[in-house]
């Protein structure tokens, strides 16, 4: 039950606050835009400044003038586009024994041809093996973050396998992943050995893409990154942030900045990521990225998205053009979001009913062996069947 009446004043104040906030953001954005064009002329100097930085803040590394923009080239036809996505049933805190499920999709389209598409998903039921050693001893269960990391790995693996199978001689290919390729979320796990192992395996997958010349890219919708804004701050404050009275770019996101500068279809320069987790990636696989204003087939202009690629892709102008063109064409067809990623999501998604069926099967498998039924705690039970 929610009674909103006591909040009447709060809502009014909220409106006023937002108006003031928008105004502040407008001023800061103008400042950021000025800084972007201002630093372009001597960007090499700024690059050195970045390199001398303490690697505390995530500052975008420069490869070219940061204010450069590029039109979307025409997408080649025919072209092979591959995507994968994953979803999971996390271990349920109210259900024992610990087990979880990953559902990973594979989609491959041979655009410009009449060849049949690949659209499928493979479920993985996991309850033992290497990960059981990492069960939280206190609670006897796997942390959600481990399951997420495992899903990310399976997604990239599925993308690699689907790309191998879909690849045709002399036909360009782009493998498109969903979400960042920088595994920062693995950092800070309680279990350092596991952290190392997971990053190592992910790095090995990235190497496979490079070794087999399967151009990899990932699409990040509504990116919350501030790397480029951090770079501009560095330029503005000349490294003296501590003594600055006010942060002129406080609270700005990269995507707001580039919403000011990019026309539909255009992309920014490529930047390098300073995320330290990548020291475990091979140098050629370290992540570069650009922002792009994606087209939207319905409304015209779509969001500012971030596209990440390994360095070996960013270094090859033709590959980078191919990624840019494919992302633009995907978003055009997908109403502002890559169509192929939507399809990959549709195949991977697990619905509430399906989740319930999963638990029923787990329960039945145990009953067949004469084992006691799953223990559901009282809380889980009451959530399912509220009594009157």
């Amino acid at each position, binding site marked *: 039950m929610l009674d909103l009446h006591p909040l009447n004043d709060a809502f009014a104040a909220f409106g006023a606050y937002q108006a003031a906030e928008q105004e502040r953001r407008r001023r800061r954005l103008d400042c950021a835009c000025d800084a972007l064009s201002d630093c372009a002329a001597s960007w090499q100097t700024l690059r050195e400044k970045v390199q001398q930085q303490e690697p505390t803040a995530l500052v975008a590394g420069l490869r070219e003038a940061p204010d450069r923009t590029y039109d979307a080239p025409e997408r080649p036809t025919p072209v092979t586009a591959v995507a994968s996505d994953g979803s999971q049933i996390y271990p349920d805190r109210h259900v024992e024994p610990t087990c979880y499920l990953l559902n990973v999709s594979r*989609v491959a*389209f041979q655009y410009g*041809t009449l*060849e*049949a*598409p690949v659209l499928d998903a493979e479920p993985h039921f996991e309850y033992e093996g290497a990960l059981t050693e990492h069960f939280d001893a206190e609670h006897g269960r796997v942390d959600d973050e481990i399951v997420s990391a495992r899903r990310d790995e399976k997604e990239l693996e599925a993308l690699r396998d689907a790309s191998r199978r879909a690849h045709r001689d002399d036909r360009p290919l782009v493998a498109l992943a969903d979400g960042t390729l920088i595994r920062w979320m693995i950092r800070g796990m309680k279990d350092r050995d596991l952290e190392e192992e997971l990053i190592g395996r992910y790095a090995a997958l990235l190497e496979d893409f490079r070794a087999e010349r399967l151009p990899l890219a990932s699409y990040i919708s509504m990116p919350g990154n501030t790397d480029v804004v951090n770079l501009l701050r560095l330029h503005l404050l000349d490294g003296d942030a501590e003594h600055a009275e006010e942060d002129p770019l406080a609270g700005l996101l990269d995507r707001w900045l580039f919403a000011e500068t990019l026309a539909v279809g255009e992309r920014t320069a490529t930047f390098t990521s300073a995320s330290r987790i990548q020291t475990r990636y091979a140098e050629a696989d370290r992540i570069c990225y650009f922002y792009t204003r994606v087209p939207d087939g319905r409304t015209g202009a779509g969001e500012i998205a971030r596209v990440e690629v390994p360095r070996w892709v960013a270094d090859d102008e033709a590959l980078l053009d191919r990624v840019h063109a494919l992302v633009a064409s995907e978003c055009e067809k997908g109403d502002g979001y890559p169509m192929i990623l939507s*399809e990959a999501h549709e195949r991977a998604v697990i619905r509430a009913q399906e989740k319930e069926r999963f638990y029923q099967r787990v329960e039945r498998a145990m009953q067949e062996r004469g084992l006691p039924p799953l223990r559901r705690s009282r809380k889980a039970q009451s959530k399912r069947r509220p009594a009157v």
Partner: protein
Amino acid sequence: MPEATAEIIESSTRAFVAEVHDGQEAPDFGSWVEVEQAETGDTLYGLVSHVEVSSYEPGRRPRAFGQSREELQRERPQVMELLRTTVRAQVLAYRPEGDDGSVRQTLPPRPPSIHDFVYCCAPEAVKTLGAPYDFLRTLVEDPDPAVPTDDLLVAVLRQVRAAHGEATGEEHLVEAGRALSRLLDDDHERLHSILRRVE
């Protein structure tokens, strides 16, 4: 045995619904299909009374893209994959296993099973569904409410003629027409309307 056209996904005494397999043409409205019942060995004959194309996923509705079929296949290859064709057939006759091979123009003792395969009837099989045309009575007196009965009758009569070929087609058509005439009593107007459309 040719490749199966479809597979049963809903089944009852009077009718079944079958999903057309990928790469297979849907059977025509008013054409005969047969099902070999895995459980009993009987062969069931059904008349396709309804064909429907829809999305596999209830949450995803088809929409107009303004592209030709070939353009869609080239640039939105998932669209065709997400569509499915289902047919509903009225069960009108069956041939019991191990009998003398004659067809009984009445409902079988058991409905077909889910996942049984559905095949289009060859002209030879359609010929066996002939005189005395008792199945027409079922069609006229207990029609599928969702289907215009007379249009189905038109399609059935055309099938009769086609199965027998040029030589004797007309002859069999006249015989079936007589059976229909008796069923429709004095409703000459209706009979004529049906026969006109068979021509």
